[in-house]
């Protein structure tokens, strides 16, 4: 592994993490920084959360977590296993349990450096 090619200047990297992803942000950031240091890269990581959104498969309504009055315990369960939402949430418009998570899962790089969008 060569580190010669490591980019010298400071790079800004923005990483988006779905609200429903079970990741400890601090630990993840620490791990990323350690890794970049290993390759002599100077990267400033910014971790941003993406709020969860749901879409009804029957009537098309889109809604977010905030509109739900959920117990903290249930919220926590949904964070561990997002599909559990189907046990506790219904479409606010038509009452259907047939909805999908359209935002708030996964981890991805949103941008690198200035203006380089991914």
């Amino acid at each position, binding site marked *: 592994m060569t580190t010669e090619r490591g980019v010298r200047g400071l790079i800004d990297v923005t990483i988006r993490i779905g609200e429903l992803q*079970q990741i400890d942000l601090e630990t993840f950031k620490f791990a990323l920084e350690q890794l970049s240091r290993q390759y002599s890269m100077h990267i400033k990581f910014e971790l941003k959360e993406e709020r969860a959104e749901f879409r009804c498969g029957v009537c098309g309504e889109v809604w977010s977590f905030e509109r739900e009055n959920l117990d903290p315990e249930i919220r926590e*369960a949904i964070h*561990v*296993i*997002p*599909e*559990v939402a*189907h*046990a*506790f949430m219904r479409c606010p418009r038509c009452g259907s*349990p*047939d909805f*999908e998570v359209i935002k708030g899962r996964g*981890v991805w790089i949103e941008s690198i450096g200035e203006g380089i969008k991914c």
Partner: protein
Amino acid sequence: MLDPRISVIGERLGRISKIIAVSSGKGGVGKSLIAATTALILSKKGLQAGLLDLDFTNPSSNMILGVSNVYPIEEKGMIPPKIHGVEYLSITFFAGDEAIPLRGEDVTNVFIEMLALTKWSDLNYLIVDTPPGLGDVLLDLLKLIRRLMFLVVMTPSRLSLGTVRKLLALLWGVKAPVIGVIENMLTEASASLRDEVERLGARFLGSIPFDPEVERGLGNPKKLLETKFAKRLSSILDQALEIT
């Protein structure tokens, strides 16, 4: 896209010696009862046993074991609670008693999440209770748990036999190891389908009679283990798994 969850599954299951799925294709033949009781029996024999309930839309192992108000310990993953000596994980820990209407893709996601998050210890056996059907969960199982072995359950009905034939063909087609077939709920009115099973080329492990005592043992593992059902299952397992 690389799914980081899938890459940790092998590691999570790495300390388990044998993983056995209890499958049937057909519904209501006694998979859940046999899976849960098998885990209890193995644990009672002094082996380290776990039970994973993969029936997300209609879980029942929690009722068989009489489990309520337990939750896995979170520690960079989930440590399954021990129920009567059995390490146990079910979706009911998260969804409680509510129905969870899930589409196929969601089922796969829950499956992956549970496998990726659960930290089993050095188990001799992990018993997997599966939902009926030859679709999503079976395909996911074959894809995500490489070393999986199958224990097939049927009832003494030609309808059940027909499904078992399809299930076996599917499993053999992908070279999945099949331990054998258990015939469950044999009554005086029914004749054993032993010969038919053997003609399919599968190992016939034994018949378990319909035992009215079972109903009273549901939710009470101690009582359940004392039933004729459990005793017969125990001797079938001794032979099938070569437990001495």
